[in-house]
């Protein structure tokens, strides 16, 4: 049994401690907003926050998440988090999604990135690219991802 703090709620799970957080979220808790893309931390579709840091949940065992705060796309974009909501709104405004499968991970990476910036700092295009380089999008939505992140950064400044 392992107890996890997920989106502010405690969950006690009866799964092997080496189970990746991704599968505990998706198959055990039914939080399917976090996506499976590669299983090897190569595509970023499974990105969640662990104590505010973007991590790849497909290679993060639940044992490593115990005692930390796990935030998933569902909570990051539900309006309770100012920066997460700004990113979500910018994603909608810029019509970023195509198939949309990678976008949960993109939004979680973008949100963690914007949270890491000093208050009021506007990211450069190079900084945005560097922060998002680990997230693949096969539909090729990158131009709009860049625009949405820059827009969200202005909104929260």
């Amino acid at each position, binding site marked *: 049994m392992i107890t996890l703090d997920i989106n502010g709620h405690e969950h006690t799970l009866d799964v092997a401690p080496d189970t990746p957080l991704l599968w505990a979220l*998706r198959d055990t808790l039914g939080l399917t907003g976090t996506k499976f893309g590669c*299983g090897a931390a190569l595509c970023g579709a499974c990105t969640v926050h662990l104590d505010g840091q973007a991590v790849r949940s497909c290679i993060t065992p639940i044992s490593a998440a115990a005692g930390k705060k796990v935030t998933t796309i569902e909570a990051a974009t539900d309006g309770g988090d100012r920066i997460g909501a700004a990113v979500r709104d910018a994603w909608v405004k810029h019509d970023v999604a195509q198939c949309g499968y990678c976008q949960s991970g993109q939004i979680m990476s973008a949100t963690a990135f914007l949270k890491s910036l000093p208050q009021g700092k506007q990211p450069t295009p190079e900084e945005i690219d560097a922060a998002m380089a680990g997230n693949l999008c096969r539909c090729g939505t990158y131009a709009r991802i860049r625009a949405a992140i820059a827009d969200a950064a202005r909104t929260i400044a």
Partner: protein
Amino acid sequence: MLPDTFPDPLPPALRDLLQRDDPAPHAAMSRRSFLKLTGLGGLALGAFPLIAAAQGTAAKTESLKPTQQPSAFLHIDADGVVTVAINRLEFGQGVQTALPMILAEELDADWSKVRTRFGDSSPAYADPAYGMHITGGSNSVKNSFVQYRELGARARAMLLSAAAARWNVDVAALRTESGKVLGPGGRSLGYGELAEAAMAQPVPARVALKDPKNFRLIGRATPRLDGGAKSSGRQDFGIDVHLPGQLTAVIAHPPVFGARLRTVDDKAARRVKGVKAVLRVPLERGGEGVAVLADGYWPAKQGREALALEWDTAGVERVDSARQLAQYRELAAQPGPRHFDADMTPLDNAPHRIEAEFVFPYLAHAPMEPLNCTVRIGADGAELWVGTQFPGIDGQAAARVFGLKPEQVKVHVQMAGGGFGRRAVGSSDYVVEACEIAKAARAAGFDAPVRMVWSREDDIRGGYYRPMHLHRARIGFDGRGRVLAWDHVLVGQSIAAGTPFEGGMIKNGVDRSAVEGMREPYPLPMRLTVHHPKLNVPVLWWRSVGSTHTAFVMETLLDEIARATQQDPVAYRLALFGDQHPRHRAALQLAVDKSGYGKRRLPAGRAWGVAVHESFSSVVAYVVEASLQQGRPVLHRVTAGVHCNLAVNPRGVEAQVQGAAMMALSMCLPGAAITFKDGEVEQRNFDAYTVARITEAPEFDVHIVPSAEPPTGMGEPGLPPLAPAFANAIARLTGQPIRELPFQLA
């Protein structure tokens, strides 16, 4: 996805399939109206009209086909919310927004109240041109434009009739606006208030459509209807389907296509916590696999890794990429079927000559959502939940696995996380696999729905690639760049061979999907010889199909002729078009004008590149800026000129062009190749198989040529001209043409 030359009408083999897919129970559909009965809230739209018909309350219009019946496509609830059924797979291309825009335009719906749902394998959701539920060939908007307009217009006419009866006035005195019928004296009724009465009105067979100049919605840049759900983790995809009691299967595939099992040791796999069963299942090409059934993906995957399997590859061809290239080169030197012919005698004495060989590798589609399919076998039928471009063909294939009649299998089309052609498989490979596992699970005593999920490794190694191709060209031209003779040879596996599409797509030994894009639209004296070797590698259409390679060959060679004769590549192309091909000229000129080509000085080290190509009836031209950074080609900026006739949703067109161009950019990058060693695919995951990242993305502007002509498709046409435009820019910098994808600099 589906070649440009996809046969119309359908080949006999497909027609046979489809006739079997038109079971008798659907006869009731001709009586359908479009509104639900009061008190039947919550029913699926597809179900209620049968009830309505049974109760004798629905209007009759016997002459309309299922694809023309508003009842199957439209539901208006009492609050005025309009739900439109989508007769296609939505996998990013935006039809879930464009198709309801078209219907809502003629319905005069309140766009803020428009919702959607996906169709299933019922005949109503067949493509009106092909007669089957099919998503491919960039055909969704093109083939359903008139259909969805008429559906909206029919429903509007019924609402008007109902309002006229309610107010006892002539229909001519009424008009509609944003979800309301407006009448004399300021009277107004919302569509929701009229819905029930409108259902009893006859369904008009003939309806007048709007003059395009009165369009309010069509042509307006419109945000996607699924944008909110997809920006908050609330959009479900096929992989998110969860049925009560569902088990998850992960399958061990043979390392070589078609290999069989010699020994299976599953003791360790069965000990993994959560594993329920280990099942041996038959696969295509005579192969076998071992499925691990568990209560979730992770234990199933752990179980698969714990299997000790020995494979028997005796009698199975083991492809080797280096050997294959040598074989293709030998083949290219031999005579073969001719697709075009022309007099080649001017070649030997031409003042200028180019001899070129091009090599294109196998490519995996690699949609971000790993392929999956959920199967539930019931007492008298089966249901499938799957993101598929071919629900009809997949349902037929499932029926064969289960020994059921086609009408006993229902396919629920799911939102799909990309596909690019990989979900349009004539053999229904992954669907059949899921069905075989479900069948084996049931035989082993598991009365549970089974969700099969592929890992990324299964996807990259799973076959059905864009075929490897070799092109050879010998071109003779004069000092003004006039081509005197062009002798061309193309070698590559046929996509259609051995599939239901073979009869319609292979003519005189040439698979039209391999040669589409060759020569057109240039007036060139070309001889084209084609070879289709057979290899143990499943191949498939991949976004823009033949044009993935033919556009590269054509547009880089023409650029090379322009360079060799000191001509501007834009002026050279325009001269070749002459006074023909106005859409090509308009698209190219728009890209040229908006990019500043020829007017603006580029930063040092950058060069312009140009290409234009028509595929799927749309023309896209690119003007790009590129440079070499430490010997690595970098794409900085892309300006697109697009001719797709009327752009239903310009914002969607922009997204498709940008996305297709990024997929094309991926083709150019190191690692964008599937290769074989001793029969096994050498790549496993995104570390070895390249997909472009944000750091590679150029700045991007898309411009659309204004037009009121009926729309042509945009899912694919943005792909073909990008790689040649990029290559042409690099060739200008190095003086050496690029002859291979991914790019190999000389």
